């Protein structure tokens, strides 16, 4: 599957590109600057779209799916003024629709108390973009994670509509696995769920949903 990855600036995004390539998908990496192209190719990106040379929307053409990591979009991160850019989520949904992309996996990072259930703090801007995605005729999956940390993945998580014993963190490598596997796991189609580091193998955790 040709999959567009948005938010490759962070380690999670890099893992997503690598794992997609490992699973014989064809990842297309969206990057902010030309300088990142080489690294993305090394990770296994079949195509790299740099915002320095190409238009944001054009990156979606020919793609069957989008994985969006909203903790790090091309307009956020080091040296960028906004922490999480929800306008880009909205733009991405629009562009996906326009280019006939069928599948959209969105990752949102949650604060600790937000992990308890799905319907807390509904006036948060974070949820508007999720809501918008659900209204569209896309096959969506919204994955809300606890705090991503720079630790090696353990391959085990806890996933569900609410997390009671939240560990408060999840290795970035594991988030990437969840996102990539969610892509073609039918059990998570059109669902929103929380994920944190846990004791259940990722495949199994997703199928249980």
């Amino acid at each position, binding site marked *: 599957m040709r999959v567009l990855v948005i938010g490759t600036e962070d380690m999670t995004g890099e893992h997503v590109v690598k794992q997609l390539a490992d699973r014989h998908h064809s990842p297309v990496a969206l990057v902010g600057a030309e300088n990142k192209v080489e690294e993305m190719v090394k990770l296994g990106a079949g195509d790299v779209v740099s915002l320095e040379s190409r238009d944001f929307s054009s990156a979606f053409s020919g793609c069957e799916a989008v994985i969006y990591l909203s903790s790090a979009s091309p307009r956020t991160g080091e*040296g960028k003024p906004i922490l999480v850019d929800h306008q880009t989520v909205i733009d991405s949904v629009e562009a996906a629709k326009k280019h006939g992309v069928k599948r959209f996996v969105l990752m949102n990072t949650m604060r600790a108390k937000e992990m308890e259930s799905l319907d807390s703090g509904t006036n948060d801007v974070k949820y508007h973009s999720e809501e918008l995605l659900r209204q569209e005729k896309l096959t969506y999956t919204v994955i809300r994670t606890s705090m991503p940390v720079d630790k090696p993945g353990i391959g085990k998580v806890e996933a569900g509509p609410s997390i009671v014993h939240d560990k408060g963190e999840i290795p970035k490598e594991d988030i990437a696995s969840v996102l990539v596997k969610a892509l073609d796991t039918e059990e998570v189609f059109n669902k929103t769920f929380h994920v944190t580091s846990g004791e259940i193998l990722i495949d199994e955790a997703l199928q249980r949903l």
Partner: protein
Amino acid sequence: MSKLKNYLPTVLKGSAVLGTVAAAAYFYRKDDTQKQHSILRNFPLIGRIRYMTEQIGPELRQYLFENNNEGTPFSRKEFEDVVKAGKYKERLIGFGSERDFNEAGYYIRNSMFPNLREELRIDNSQKINTKVYEVDEEGLLTRKEKREDRQIEPYFLRDEDAVIIGGETCRNPFKLKGLVGQSAMSYGALGENAITALSRGLGLAGGTWMNTGEGGLSKYHLSGNPDIMMQIGPGLFGVRTPGGEFFWEEFKKKSEIEQVKAFEIKLAQGAKIRGGHIEGQKVTEEIAQIRLVEPGQTINSPNRFYEFRNFNELFEFVERMRDVGGKPIGIKIVVGDLDALEEMTKTMRDTGKGPDFITVDGGEGGTGATYQELADAVGLPIMSALPLVDEMLKKYGVRNRVKLIASGKLTSPDKVAVALAMGADLVNIARGFMISVGCIMAEICHTNHCPAGVATTDSKLQEGLVIEEKQYRVANYVISLREGLFNLAAAAGIDTPTKFERKHIVHKDEWGRVSPVRDITLTPEKVEKLRNKEKVEK
């Protein structure tokens, strides 16, 4: 029974007092009658305090009396920098530098428009799983910390920035994705635990290399699968025939080991510009097997190779080694005699032959057991030697044929960066890596009694050094150096540390005068020429 209970405390107290008095009397008499120390004869017992404090002086000074910038060979601060980089992978400080800014030294010229992090040419496509310590709570006498898994970025050079040794000359050139490696340390000088921890740590970090030292290639060097530079000294350990001649077949065998990426002929080293010496009792079965010598017999290696007497013969030998082994061949030198240096570079130009890399060891270098007079006075320190070699090679138009590796107390990113700017292509570190595996600078490397279990083959002392724990510190240290180099490169306005040049550093003398770092070997005629050129350009 009850009586015994009543008397017991008194008996115990009594015997404690009596015992102490008896011991004091014994030592008093012993001191009084011995003939070796006059102080003890005149001041029995009391005089012992002098000897005791003298013995633990280095430790006392280090912990109690010296300020953070004092202390040799490494100050407390330099030592801590290495330890912290390895243990916490942390180089952030608060409230400013502790460097003595009144002293003369080199400084990096910062650009008014530094590079952004995303503009740097880093290859972080691989990740490295390591372990670091996290401090939870720090009290006056206690520190609560725990070791945690961490996935970190390796800070490799991009493929096109990678340093390639022997690219034009060898069947198997050596490609380096990082600029810092481990300098020569032999198995035997360091114990198997230290060598294994280093090997695993360097293997984990990647983009670095491990120099075996002249004591031959051991299985401990190979254990962590790092890239290896095998050093060959005049003793020819590991590549010698029973008669003591160069053993070409064995050399070929060693060069066929995939991990062995290059060979280094050691003409000299900073610590000892002399032949090595190992006592027969240290030559165990295992060491004998690695070095290809007879177990139990004292070995004195010559202080020069029998195989060559001048540069022509040396280069012929290098040619043959490269031909047989197919891998890059380098030489390790200490610069003292400028005429000899000139002769070497001239021979390189005239014959079109020569080494693929030259390791320039500063006179200050040295983990090795050596003689004081050799360590202190023979050979120039690295910051003087390095530019001399660089310029000499340029003068004869052969600079592009060799890579320069610098070594000599370059334990932190800023020192490495200055060496790179002074003309080095790569940097070797020995003692920094020793510190990362637990060295506390007890300065008794030559005795086999290293308290940290690093520079000793004593199995009891080595129990203190846990390989599994120390290997991560080695990896963290070297990665942290690479990260620091990229930080400095960004500050200097370049996008990769391979681009450091003289123009990126300045020298400030002790009176605060700042001067650019120019060619040291500029002759008056050359200066005249440059002036004329400037005039024409104007």
